[in-house]
Structure formats: C-alpha cells, structure tokens
C-alpha cells in the first residue's frame, strides 16, 4: 500500500510542477486542459518526465488518455507493471 501511495504522490508532484500549480491544488480528476490550462506541449512534457522518473515508455498515441491525475496514474501503472 505504501508503494502505491508514495508513487501516486510522486506523480502528483511531477505533474503539478509541469502545470505550475501547487501539488495540493492538483485534484485526482481535475482535467489538465480545462482546469489547469494545459496544451499539447504540456502533455508531452508530462510524459517526458514520467518516462524519465519511472523508467517507462508511454507511447505518443496514448496522450489523449492522460486527462487527469487518476487516468495518468493508471496509464503509468499499466506500462510499469505495478500491481496495486
């Protein structure tokens, strides 16, 4: 459980930094584009940082799935093979 929580919060921090908000301002289901003003370049930056931090490779084609913190976590978990 602690692994899950730690990774989730780590992801929140990474994404919040890219979106230029405080981690506590980034909610689980807040839409990156609509609520945090992200565009396609921000999305690419998020993926780049995730790839580096978690040593995964999220294909460009899955970018549309990364709408909010929760769906992004699910995508990373799937590619990293995390069993939560």
């Amino acid at each position, binding site marked *: 459980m602690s692994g899950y929580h730690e990774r989730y919060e780590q992801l929140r921090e990474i994404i919040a930094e890219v979106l230029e908000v405080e981690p506590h301002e980034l909610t689980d289901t807040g839409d990156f584009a609509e609520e945090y003003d992200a565009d396609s*370049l921000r999305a*690419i930056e998020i993926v780049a940082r995730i790839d580096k931090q978690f040593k995964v490779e999220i294909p*460009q084609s899955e*970018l549309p799935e990364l709408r909010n913190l929760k769906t992004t976590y699910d995508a990373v978990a799937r590619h990293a093979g995390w069993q939560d």
Partner: protein
Amino acid sequence: MTQRVVVTGLGPVSSIGTGAADFAAALRAGRSGISRITGFDPTGFPHQHGGEVCGFDPAAWLQRISTAKWGRSSQFAATAGRLAAEDAKLDLERIDRSRAHAVIGTTSGESVVVEALTAQIVADGFGAMSPDLLAQLPAGRLAHAVSEELGLHGESVTLATACSASNYAIGYAYDLLATGEADVVLAGGADSVCRWAHAGFYRLGALTATACSPFDRDRSGILTGEGGAVLVLETLEHATSRGAYAYAEMLGYGVNCDATHPVAPDRATIAECMRIAHRNAGVDPSEVDYICAHGTGTPANDLVEAQAVIEVFGERPPPVSSIKSMIGHTMGAASGFGAIASVIAIEQGFLPPTVNWVHPDPQIPQIDPVPNQARPATVRVVQNNGFAFGGNNAIVMLGSPR
C-alpha cells in the same frame, strides 16, 4: 521608382547535391538525401535518420574564410554564397561592394557549436569551454561568413525566424533591391543537423523513422536535415548592365504571424499570408502554376497547409509538392532550398516530385502532390511556402523572366 528584382545565381549545398546543376538533376530524379546520422551518435534514439550533407568539404569551395574559425552552419552559408556568386558570374572586383548585402536565415544558428560547448561544460565545468568555440557561437555570424567570404560591404544580417527564415531573408532582400537601397543581395539560409533538434522533434512526436512522406495519408513526421541555400538577387537594371542571365524574376512576398500557438499551424493566417503574397506580387491565384510547399510531412502541417491552399485557390489548386520528401526539413535553409527549386522549376520546365508518396489523403483529395516522379510543365509563376513555429509565415513569389 520601384526596381524590378531578378534571380541571377543559385547556391545549394544540400544532401542531394552541391551546386545548381547537381541539385537540379537530383530534384528531377527524385533522389533521397536521407541516411543514418553521423554528425552525432544517434544510438539510443528510436529514429536515427536525417538529411546530412555527407562529405561536405567547405575548403574545396571557400576562398577567403578559414574553416577552422567558423562553425558548420556558417560554413554552409559561406559555401552556398560562394557557389551562388559563381553561378551568377558575379565579378566581385567590379561591383559596388557597399551596395552588395548578405541576409541569411536560420533556426538554430551554430547548433553544433552549442552542443560541443555544452559537452565541455557537462564534462569538466564552465572553465573547460574552448575560447575558439565560443568565438564561433554567435548566430549573427552566418551572414558575416557570407559577407567576409565574398568581401561584401553592405548590410550583413542574420534572421532567426526559424523554418520560414530563408523566405524572410529573401523578402528583406527584395525590399532592399526594390527600393534602390542595394544592387545585389545574397539571400537564403543555413542550418546543421544536431542532436538537440533531433531529440526535440522526436519528443514532440513529429519525427518519422526513415522516409518523410508529405501529403500521404499515413505521413508521420519530419526528418531533420541540413545545408546552405543562397540565391543571388539583383535589380534588373544591375543584372542587365553587367550582362547577367536572369533565371527568374522575384515578383514579391508576404509575411505574417498568427501569434497564437507555439507549434500548431493556423489555417486562416496561412491563407491570409498567401493573399498578402499574391497582392504584393500582383498575381492572381489563377496565374500560379506550382506551389513549392512547406510540406513538412507532419499530419498537422500538411493538412492545414492544404486546407489553406484550397481556401485561397478553390477546389482545383495548382500542383503542390514538397522537396522535404527528398532532403528532410533543413530548418532555416528550408524555404531557401524551396526558392532554388522554384527557380529551377521555372528555368528547366519541370515540377519537383513528392517522393515516398503511396496513399492519397482522403481529407485533401484536391491536392496533387506530384507523386514520386518529376513532371514536365510550363512554369510561369511559383508560390514558395515557408512556415515556422509560432505561426511565423513567409511566402515568396517567383516568375519567369520577362
């Protein structure tokens, strides 16, 4: 009185040929200049190809500047300038040097030098930077390399408007000549293949693997390329007085910027840029015989560019081909190569092909990309497109000499 402006010299240094004759023959043959990158080690990148000028030997061409003192992009610019001046049979001892200018466009300037310095900093700290390399760093030196190589005493200006920069340079040259400020302008652009552009475009999802296929249904991106593309532009009066041969007349140009999104192209602004160029050149869309496209091979660019063409030209636009299918995206040199290809199309009477083209794009059935084989044609008026990140658009209009 507005001076008429003509093109009297072509200086391409490209992955498919150096000099006007070789470059023209390669365009006609639909040759590809794409190979595995050697300028940096591409190991580890999922995609490893680009359009490098293999075996570039500037010392064989340059007469005045030393290759030891100039970066790769400046060497491309100076070599292209030297070739263009020779092609124009420009006797530099007999022209008024103070009225001969150099205007060079670029995206990343001396990018190879930047990377070498960065490697030194990363390895051994700031103190390890080579003073010789630092001296080569300023991007403004691209135009200076041309001025110094040819001994030109007019303005020496580098324009960093990225992927439309050569058209910006040619447009500025047109102003200098049309208003009587200059007799001769060496104008074009230069850029080098570098890891930073390769990595950046890869991360944007805009880089393809081995074959760039503009206007194809399944196109998937650009390949980075390099080279120098310089044209000699002259007032008609000056060209006539020295008995020079005019390949083409420059009819005008248009520039604008949509200033909305960093990378997404905007159809309305691009269409407006075409109208500005037509107005400036006194050309009706029905008179345009060929469009030398920006045609990067990304899904977004080619769709938006084609839609803008259809908006301006209607359902039956002239043929639209992309030489990036052969040489890759040469960044700041791209629209300079496009301008040279446009002049060759007029001069030699053929349309350069879009190679690697397999499937029509059902979204833009009106577009004839001149697939895979050059096509004989009478070409009187050409529209040469150049679009840059930030929505910075520049279009040059060229016509057969009258």
